[in-house]
């Protein structure tokens, strides 16, 4: 007792023999060449497509390497009390806030239409119900949208099944969204914070909310796990 059990010394009896690892370098080189080739192919049609490809790939790599998971950020506080991923998401939200504000404000200040205003959705009970359903679904499926895509790439078989139904669900949702917009949530207000508080006020309100959530996350973990580390 007391001494650390090295896996080398304890293993062997009932552990499967280790498979020798194959070098993945040839595959990596091949994929890199294919991606570059695909970039040139896309460039024929549209200048911006390569930029989208680059952003998509970077997003995927960062997501995979950092084990970033939006599902875990909301699930782990309930299961283990750990809020480290929750705080990572809050920091990501505040960084995104700065970026979005820069893009939207520069368009607004230049007198151009503000991009992305279609995505300012109505707030209604349908949203609350939908959010709860999405939450239940992502915990059962083992990942939200980005998490599912990332793990399909890693070769996790179960989530390939998730992906199929995720596509079906998304298509169904997109198909019926117009009906919901015109019939059910027509009267619901859609709030764009800069309209209510002004641009600086909106930033302050947003950061205040994120800061309060961050402080709550720290307190939650201290209470549940005894340390905020």
């Amino acid at each position, binding site marked *: 007792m007391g001494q650390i059990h090295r896996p080398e010394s304890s293993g062997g*009896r009932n552990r499967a023999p280790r498979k020798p690892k194959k070098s993945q370098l040839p595959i990596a080189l091949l994929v890199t060449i294919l991606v570059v080739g695909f970039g040139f192919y896309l460039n024929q049609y549209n200048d911006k497509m390569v930029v989208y490809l680059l952003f998509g790939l970077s997003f995927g790599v960062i997501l995979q390497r950092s084990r970033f998971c939006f599902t875990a950020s909301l699930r782990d506080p309930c299961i283990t009390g750990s809020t480290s991923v929750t705080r990572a998401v809050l920091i990501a939200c505040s960084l995104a806030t700065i970026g979005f504000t820069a893009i939207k404000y520069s368009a607004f200040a230049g007198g151009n239409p503000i991009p992305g205003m279609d995505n300012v959705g109505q707030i209604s009970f349908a949203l609350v119900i939908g959010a709860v359903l999405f939450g239940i679904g992502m915990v059962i499926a083992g990942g939200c949208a980005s998490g599912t895509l990332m793990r399909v790439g890693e070769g996790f078989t179960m989530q390939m099944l998730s992906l199929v139904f995720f596509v079906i669900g998304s298509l169904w949702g997109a198909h019926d969204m117009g009906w919901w917009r015109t019939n059910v949530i027509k009267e619901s207000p859609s709030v764009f914070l800069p309209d209510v508080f002004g641009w600086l006020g909106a930033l302050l309100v947003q950061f205040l909310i994120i800061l309060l959530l961050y402080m709550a996350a720290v307190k939650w973990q201290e209470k549940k796990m005894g340390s905020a580390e």
Partner: protein
Amino acid sequence: MAEFTLDCLGEACPVPLMKTEKKMADLKVGDVLVVSIDHSCAMKNVPEWARKQGHNVEIEEIADGEWEVVIEKTK
């Protein structure tokens, strides 16, 4: 100083963590639990949980995308 194994191959996150939590409660101090996982998310939260509980943890990648988390119960 018994050694136990827990096969969580093919199980998506949070299942490996919850199974580990339950199994660890049955173990005596000094016992070792070897959890096999292949879900990258569990690779993060199982060791993180065990370390925060104060156990000794070692991670071994036994194949590409397949890990063994070795946890020694310390309390």
